[in-house]
């Protein structure tokens, strides 16, 4: 206490330290205020969106921006690679098939992209063989009605839209300027939304709906399959011609989804006997598969299957036991899935794992027959006539030829 009360000698600079804040304040006012005022008299950096831009914003953003998708229908091959690639089922393509003569082989009734759902991942753009589907730089999705956000690339008036057939060997495709198509579709967004149907109308629509019935305009894959099979039988020996016939059963988009560069690659491989799977043409889907199988079977058997048979045989063939009891009809190989077929074939072997068939064990031989196209069914020595008969029955639907 005493110390504090004693008159203190002023520390040198006490006045300085007292006035320093004042000087600092004055200085920082001088600097700071002149800076803020200088901004007052400058043009603001902000550009005003959207109506005071000198060019539309979508033209100022980088070219590789992932905005709304756009499909140039003139070069879309209807391969549906984009539809398959989309992880969240944003793209919907409805395909109608034609016979390739009176109407194009592949037609699109609908090509919708729901922009309201799209997450702009770009996965659909990558597999497109022609670059028909691309991201534009458009991004302004404000609309009065959410339903309007679905971009319909096949104009309802122009449906069904024929798929583009890629000229052989072409690498560049004549694409319309990016963004034009989507911008046109976006103009329709301001239109009033379609009214919601009433309950009565929905019931009416339900009645009319063709649940499961083949489309009138659509193609009958079974009939076409028989047609092709007949053709294939005629040219059985001539591999290039056979390839032509087989190619007709494919979707013809040259998308490469089958693992071959194009449809020619896949069909040629089948014609040469290098490829036995009929399931690889994804764009063709079940139709292509069915046609290919019909052709292959008729090539094997030399007979074109009758029209009604496949349908009749199918339900019974579902269980192997029933199929064995009923030898007529198409062979199990055509009706069962590979996994089921594998089981049935394995049953037919003697099961000794002897290796006499030149495979390491029964499993190997079975796989060879089912998956790798092994044509020789006579190798299972331990099984003898018994195994042979079963295998011929299963794979070809015939009696084994005498030895």
């Amino acid at each position: 206490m005493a110390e504090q009360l004693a008159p203190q000698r002023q520390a040198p600079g006490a006045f300085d330290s007292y006035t320093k804040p004042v000087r600092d304040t004055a200085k920082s006012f001088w600097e700071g205020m002149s800076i803020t005022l200088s901004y007052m008299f400058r043009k603001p950096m902000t550009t005003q969106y959207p109506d005071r831009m000198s060019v539309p914003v979508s033209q100022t953003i980088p070219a590789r921006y992932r905005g709304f998708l756009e499909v140039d229908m003139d070069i879309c091959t209807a391969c549906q690679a984009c539809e398959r690639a989309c992880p969240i089922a944003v793209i919907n393509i409805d395909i109608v098939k034609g016979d390739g003569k009176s109407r194009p082989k592949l037609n699109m009734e609908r090509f919708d992209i729901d922009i309201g759902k799209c997450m702009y991942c770009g996965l659909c753009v990558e597999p497109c063989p022609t670059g028909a589907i691309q991201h534009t730089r458009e991004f302004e999705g404000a609309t009065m009605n959410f339903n309007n956000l679905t971009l319909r690339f096949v104009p309802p008036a122009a449906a069904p839209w024929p798929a583009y057939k890629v000229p052989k060997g072409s690498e560049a495709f004549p694409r319309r300027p990016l963004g034009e198509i989507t911008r046109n579709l976006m103009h329709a967004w301001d239109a009033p939304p379609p009214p919601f149907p009433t309950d009565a109308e929905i019931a009416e629509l339900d009645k009319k709906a063709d649940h499961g019935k083949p489309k009138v305009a659509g193609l009958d894959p079974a009939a076409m399959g028989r047609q092709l099979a007949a053709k294939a039988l005629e040219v059985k020996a001539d591999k290039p011609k056979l390839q032509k016939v087989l190619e007709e059963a494919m979707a013809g988009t040259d998308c490469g989804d089958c693992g071959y560069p194009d449809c020619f690659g896949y069909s040629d491989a089948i014609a040469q006997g290098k490829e036995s799977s009929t399931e690889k043409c994804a764009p063709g889907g079940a139709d292509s598969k069915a046609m290919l199988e019909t052709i292959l079977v008729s090539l094997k058997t030399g007979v074109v299957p009758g029209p009604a048979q496949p349908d009749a045989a199918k339900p019974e063939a579902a269980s192997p036991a029933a199929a064995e009891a009923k030898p007529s009809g198409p062979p199990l190989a055509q009706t069962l899935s590979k996994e089921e077929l594998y089981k049935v074939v394995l049953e037919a072997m003697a099961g000794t794992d002897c290796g006499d068939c030149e495979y390491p064990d029964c499993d190997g031989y079975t796989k060879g027959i089912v998956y790798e196209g092994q044509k020789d069914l006579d190798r299972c020595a331990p099984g003898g006539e018994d195994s042979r008969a079963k295998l011929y029955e299963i794979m070809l639907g015939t009696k084994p030829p005498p030895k």
Partner: protein
Amino acid sequence: MQAFLDSLIRNAGHDPATWPWTQFVYLAAMGAVSFAVINFAAITAGIFSWAERRVAARMQSRVGPNRVGPGGFLQWVADAVKLLLKEDLVPDEADQFLFRIAPYFMMVGFACVFVCLPFSHRLIVADMNVGIFYILAVTALIVVGIIMSGWSSNSKWSLFGAIRSAAQIISYEIPAGMALMIPVMLAGTLSTQGIIRAQGGWPWQWYVFNNPAALVAFLIYFISALAEGNRTPFDLPEAESELVSGYNTEYSGMRFSYFFLVEWGNMWIMSALASTMFFGGWQIPGLSPEHFDALTGGVAVLAEVASLAIFAFKTLIFVFIVMWLRWTLPRIRVDQMMNMCWKYLVPASFAGVLFVGVWMLIVHAAPWIGLVMRLGLTAAGALGVTLFALRTLKNIRDTGDKFDFTSNW
């Protein structure tokens, strides 16, 4: 005001002293004037809210609200309508009665100040002979309103804000009051009109350049007024980052808008007071108040309008400075705020009062010293403003930009 009404009654051919309707005329005039004044306050506050947003935006290189009406000018109307239509929530736990009336205390304290604020040579609601005292007294009502709102909200944020505000206003009342005493001493009157009349139209006749102490007093007054009005850098009572929104956190709708009305209206009050006390108010350069009084007819009306324009212009400059400060300075800490008040402003204002007392004696003995000092300070002030303007231009050029005030509004 009363004299004006009396002259009206006399013109109508009655004697105000004996005419039975005199009191009713007074009453009607009171109602009309209060209505006009409160509306003036509300509308200026609204316009300032728009102006502040535009100024803030420009200072931050933005554009600001510019869609409603020309240049966004009607934004404040839209905001006001929105606030009026919003639900007026009262928290369950709040002290219902106090919570509801607190905004009105603020409004009353705020509106009462306008009674003594001059607008032009003749335009003033009441030229009281204790004008400055009155203003200092009624502004205290605002702190009552703030404390009430903070307490009754029953929320920690609100209470903190209110207590900070009380501490701040009470502290800064002292330097503000002392600083205002300096023009009062120089003019020898507390009446606002009297103080303006004692100054002159030219800058060297303004009190701010009268002597160094008066210049300092102006700065002290301005700082304290910022603090009392809760303006940045003294916006601690409503520091968003710390207290959500301070004492008005729990308010919504119309009651909330009162707080903001008071805040923005306060900008007019502090600026008008600054131009009244230190910057010659409505004085027209080259026209002495006596001559002004003597004018008649159209010239008088013209001069009246000119004085109104001059006063408004000066006031708006200060309003701009207040906004400008807000968008320049960060908020200071509570301890810094108290330090500044008690260690710097209070001693300086007391010293200033003493200095002015002595100075008045000196000038009385040798008037030329006063004249030299006034001219010198005016020159220094002009030099400062010029240097500042050059500095600002340099700031613009240094960044490779150019002076452009007109584009992109």
